[in-house]
Every structure is written in structure tokens, then in C-alpha cells.
């Protein structure tokens, strides 16, 4: 009555319909179980207080961060517009949008943490879980896919070593299909990148060097291999 799911989750026999459904369909046991985000199964922690707008008196915010958020808030007719830049700033300070980071932004912006949580989880570039401080986004979307981006993504992941403070992830279209296959290293677009260059890229990020100098989009004299140098 408790078939193991592919992702290690045990289906409890509490739901007879579900259990019968799976038990009666052995041919489907081979199909992968739908991927599920972590929060789905999570119960609220009833020992916590409700997350209301934090009282500024109770939350300490780094002065630089507070100033930056307030500057962003001043730019818009509605202070809530500053949510994205403010969260991005907090993410720079904390490495990810941790509950603490969200509480600080919420205290400055006078919104509830849940408001920000919902924004954070919506956008790909805001991290709701701790990840490396450096990021390498490998575009695997349609155009790059056609130029073997998957191999590059796999090579990047393979080049990672334990302890690396790098967030390597496959990303949907980065808007640089002419450079395919390409990747975005901390905001710098490089491409085309051959999978064999992946270890070099990762090593450069690890050591704080500029990966593949001269081949970044904004680099001086950057041009694609098939373009004539102007």
C-alpha cells in the first residue's frame, strides 16, 4: 500500500483513491513522478507567530541596504514598485533572499514578508533557497538547444567541485541566441562557449578571474567568430 515514489517520497496509504490508482497501474510505476516544489508538502510551523509587517524597532537593517531601498522607493509613485530592486539589493547583501533578508526589506518597505516571498518565488533571478554567490546561467532554450547547449550545461555542472560558491543552472532564453551556446556569468554574457571550455570558466569564477577574457559581450573588440572585425 505504500509504493515508493521516484523522488524518494513515500506515498502514504492515507488516500485510498491514490493508492489504488497506483497499485492498479503497475505499468505506470516506471513513469517518473511529477516534480514538485518543496513548499507543497510543508505544513505551517504552528509555533511561529504570524508574519505581519515587521516593526522597524524589531528589525536591524544594514545602513547601506536601508539607504538603497529607500532610494529605490523614492523613484516610484507607489513604494511597492521598489520590491524587485530592493530584493535584488538584499540578495546581494545576503547571498539569497533568506527570511532574514526578506524581513529587512519588509521592515523598510512597510509590506508583509509574505508579499515579498511571493515575489521572490515568482522570479527566476531571486533565490528563495541558499545558493552560491556567483552564478553561471547556461541558456538551454530553443536557439541554444539547437546548438548543443545541453552539453555545455552538463559540462558546467560536471566542472563544479564541492565547496564551490557557484550557482550553475540551466536558464531559459537569455536573449543572446547569436552567441549560442552561451552562458551568463555574474551578469557577463560569454559565448559561444565550447563544452570543453567549461572547466576553465568554472575555475575562473572560483578564482575570481574574468572567464574567457575578450569573449564577453561588453568586452572591447568583442565580435562573433563569423563577424569581420570592424
Amino acid at each position, binding site marked *: *500500500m505504500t509504493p515508493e515514489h521516484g523522488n524518494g517520497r513515500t506515498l502514504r*496509504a*492515507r*488516500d*485510498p483513491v491514490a*493508492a489504488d490508482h497506483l497499485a492498479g497501474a503497475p505499468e505506470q510505476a516506471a513513469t517518473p513522478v511529477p516534480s514538485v516544489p518543496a513548499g507543497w508538502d510543508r505544513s505551517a510551523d504552528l509555533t511561529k507567530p504570524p508574519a505581519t509587517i515587521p516593526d522597524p524597532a524589531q528589525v536591524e537593517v544594514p545602513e547601506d541596504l536601508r539607504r538603497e531601498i529607500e532610494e529605490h522607493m523614492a523613484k516610484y509613485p507607489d513604494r511597492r514598485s521598489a520590491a524587485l530592486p530592493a530584493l535584488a539589493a538584499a540578495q546581494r547583501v545576503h547571498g539569497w533572499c533568506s527570511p532574514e533578508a526578506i524581513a529587512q526589506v519588509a521592515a523598510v518597505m512597510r509590506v508583509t514578508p509574505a508579499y515579498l516571498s511571493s515575489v521572490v518565488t515568482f522570479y527566476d533571478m531571486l533565490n528563495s533557497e541558499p545558493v552560491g554567490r556567483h552564478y553561471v546561467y547556461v541558456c538551454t532554450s530553443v536557439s541554444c538547444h539547437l546548438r548543443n547547449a545541453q552539453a555545455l550545461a552538463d559540462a558546467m555542472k560536471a566542472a563544479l567541485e564541492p565547496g564551490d560558491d557557484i550557482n550553475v543552472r540551466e536558464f531559459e532564453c537569455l536573449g543572446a541566441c547569436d552567441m549560442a551556446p552561451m552562458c551568463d556569468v555574474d551578469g557577463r554574457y560569454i559565448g559561444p562557449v565550447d563544452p570543453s571550455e567549461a572547466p576553465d570558466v568554472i575555475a575562473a569564477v572560483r578564482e575570481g578571474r574574468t572567464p574567457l577574457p575578450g569573449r564577453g559581450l561588453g568586452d572591447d573588440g568583442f565580435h562573433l567568430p563569423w563577424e569581420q572585425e570592424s
Partner: protein
Amino acid sequence: MSYPWSEDVITVERGPEPGGVGGAYRVLGETLRGLKTVFKQALSKPVTIEYPEEKTPVYPRFRGRHKLHRFEDTGLEKCVGCSLCAAACPAGCIRVVAAENTPDHQVSAGERYAAVYEINLTRCIFCGYCEIACPFDAITMGVDYELADYTRSDLIFTKEMLLADPIDKTPLRAEGE
């Protein structure tokens, strides 16, 4: 997705029109067939069953006292207390009060179980709707028909009584016997 009417038309085969010589023959034939049955029964031995020493066997599809079931492997009750039997019951003789299973008190396989399950057999009309309504085959109509008692309240069967097997087994008749 309209449904063609032609699929619903059933051709009825009719016998010949009554009257005439053929009709008279048919009437005579049927009458003789009837008389044959009459004479056969008139000459057979009377049937007497010495109840309660001897019990009338019933057909397997006989609708007698209800039974609640458990899963054979886990022993958990099949009933999840959904109350659909109570909703289906035309006599209104079923009462279900559900409760929630907890990890240390797992009674049924679902999230909920029937904390109270009562059938007032004085009211039951043995229509079998409860059986049809049950989504988990948790309740079925048994074959026991010995349902007499001295007080009415004793005929309100509780869950424990319905889950238990009857003391005396009612003899079954094979289909077609």
C-alpha cells in the same frame, strides 16, 4: 458530439396476430402446459422446513443483514466514513459520524474513518442502495436474515456488530439450484 437516434431504436419482434385457427391451437397448447404443472405439483410431496433446526438456504444475491469489511492484508476498515450510504438510504436508517485518523490511531485507509456507524435494522428496507453508493465496497448486503429481537434498540446495529461475522452461518444455495 450528438448521438445518432438510430442507435437507440430497438426492433421488437412481435408474435403472429391473435385469432384464426393458429390462435386456437396456441391457446390449447398453453392451457395443456399449465395443466401439466398443476398436476405435477398436486402429486409431489409437500415441502416443510424444520426452522429453526433447519434453515432455508438463500441465494448468494439475497439481501440480508449488512456487513462492513476490512482490508484483508492490513486489517484496516474499508469504510472511510463518507456517509454516502446514509445519503442514499431511502429509509434514513444509517447514521455515520466520522473522525480523523491519526498516525497512532489508524482505523481506516483514508484520512477519515467512521467513528460511529449505525444501521437501524428495524427501519431498513434492504434495498441495497447503501451497497451501491459505497465508493470503497466497505458495506455489502450479507445473507443473514435472522433479525428478530426483544427490544427495538437492540436492532440498531453498531459498527462493531456490523464488522463482526454472524455466529450462525446462513446456508447458501448455488445459483440455479
